[in-house]
């Protein structure tokens, strides 16, 4: 009997967790539409948006620039190890560029953005909730979703694709430094093969689409977790952690789904 009760409890806990998960997803979806509806003032008052782009985007530049550069350099070193076995070291430019533009740029920039800017957004909104700043705004007849959430959300949506592009650029430059300047691959071959092999629509635009999708996902997760945080120090801390974890999982899952749709079997 005791054993049966434990099994029943276990099923009950799974059911509760599933129901809570679906409920939160529903809340997040409604919250997204609330943001969209309240987005008018964000674009009517660009100063608000620019301020948030500065916080979310400009202040994330250092980590994105450094990460892009190092990842590009590592890609070149690792790629050389493989390419040299097939006598195809001139294709290093293609390898580095395609890896970054199609995959690593959007994904790693998204992960970095979630860790640096997404967590900051969650913590800021969560603390505003904890200290009743959102409630004060609401009582002043100022919609906190329009004034606080929407500008941060759209700042994230605008910033991440730009950061992903910058990440890829720096990565390619890092690959150039290692491949051409350090290892001594021909610079003409490095850039020339890259120019021929990298397709604007199938490679660059697909990367851009990925980064835009990730930007929507990460920004929504960040602002939702902040707005939905339990108004205590512990609650804000948990919400910030959830933002980073959920964003990372969402980016990787969405990346797989998008890659499946974009997969062309090597045909340009």
């Amino acid at each position, binding site marked *: 009997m005791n054993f049966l009760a434990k099994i029943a409890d276990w099923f009950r806990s799974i059911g509760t967790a599933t129901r809570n998960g679906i409920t939160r997803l529903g809340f997040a979806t409604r919250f997204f539409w609330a943001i969209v509806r309240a987005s008018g003032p964000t674009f009517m008052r660009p100063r608000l948006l620019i301020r948030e782009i500065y916080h979310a985007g400009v202040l994330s530049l250092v980590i994105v620039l450094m990460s892009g550069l190092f990842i590009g350099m590592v890609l070149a070193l690792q790629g050389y190890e493989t390419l040299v076995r097939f006598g195809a070291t001139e294709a290093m430019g293609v390898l580095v560029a395609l890896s970054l533009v199609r995959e690593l740029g959007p994904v790693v920039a998204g992960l970095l953005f979630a860790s640096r800017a997404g967590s900051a957004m969650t913590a800021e909104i969560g603390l505003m909730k904890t200290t*009743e700043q959102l409630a004060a705004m609401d009582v002043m007849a100022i919609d906190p979703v329009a004034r606080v959430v929407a500008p941060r959300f759209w700042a994230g949506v605008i910033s991440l694709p730009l950061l992903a592009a910058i990440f890829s650029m720096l990565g390619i430059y890092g690959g150039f430094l290692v491949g051409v300047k350090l290892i001594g691959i021909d610079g003409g071959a490095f850039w020339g093969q890259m120019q021929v092999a990298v397709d604007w629509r199938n490679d660059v635009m697909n990367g851009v689409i990925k980064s835009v999708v990730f930007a929507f996902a990460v920004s929504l997760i960040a602002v939702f977790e902040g707005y939905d945080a339990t108004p205590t120090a512990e609650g804000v801390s948990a919400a910030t952690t959830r933002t980073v974890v959920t964003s990372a999982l969402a980016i990787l899952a969405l990346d797989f789904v998008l890659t499946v749709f974009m997969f062309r079997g090597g045909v340009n």
Partner: protein
Amino acid sequence: MHSASSNERNFASTPQPTDASAHIELREVSFGYTPERQILSGVNLTVPRGKLVAVMGGSGCGKTTILRLLCGQHVASSGQVLVEGKDVAHMSRDELFAHRRKLGMLFQFGALFTDMSVFENIAFPMREHTDLPEAVIRDLVLLKLNAVGLRGAAQLRPSELSGGMARRVALARTIALDPSLVLYDEPFAGLDPISLSVVGQMIRKLNDALGMTSILVTHDIAESLKIVDYIYFISEGRVVAEGDVESIKASTDPFVKQFVNGEPDGPVRFHYPAVALEEAFR
């Protein structure tokens, strides 16, 4: 003086606010965050236009909840919360925002916007709700800050203020748009004796000069008795006593006496319900 829950309360006879002039009226209002835990149970309360009314009671008795019901942040589970005759629960979103534009609320912990300076905090509602030129806003903000004695702190950030200063800045922001209804949630908490007296007098003067209706939620009996017109005592979600200042001072009601004199023994228990001490340490 009026007894709310029992007829044997021994208050002197004082005029109760009349419904005809009521700005605020709560009729049999009940509210709970969960169905199991009721915060308010059948509260009746009237605040006439232009009056300064205090709502008092022990911690967690539902005083702040009343303010939140009045500004539409919570909806009563039963009963009516009437502001100028309109039930807040039945207001449309536009009506609710119109109602909120006419009210100011001082939050318990100030709720200043931490990413703005003191000046910007007070200018915030003006910039959001009016088309006043920046020069006029500047003058108005400095006037409000001068009234709370903090004109010199205009450029400080909220993190640079003491608790009492933050409360005074929040007060200046609350009255930034000269609201017709002001809700004060513990305005005296954390204030030094000078600030406490100045803020108390200011609340009274603002109420009279601008014809505001004010509701003051506070524990500070001494300061409240100096400035308010009428007092409601709440306990366990109900109005247990009410009356004007003189009748409260003269009251022999055990609840009022215990509260006014800060006595540990009386109808209000100090300890949260728990098992007996001997049992707990067994």
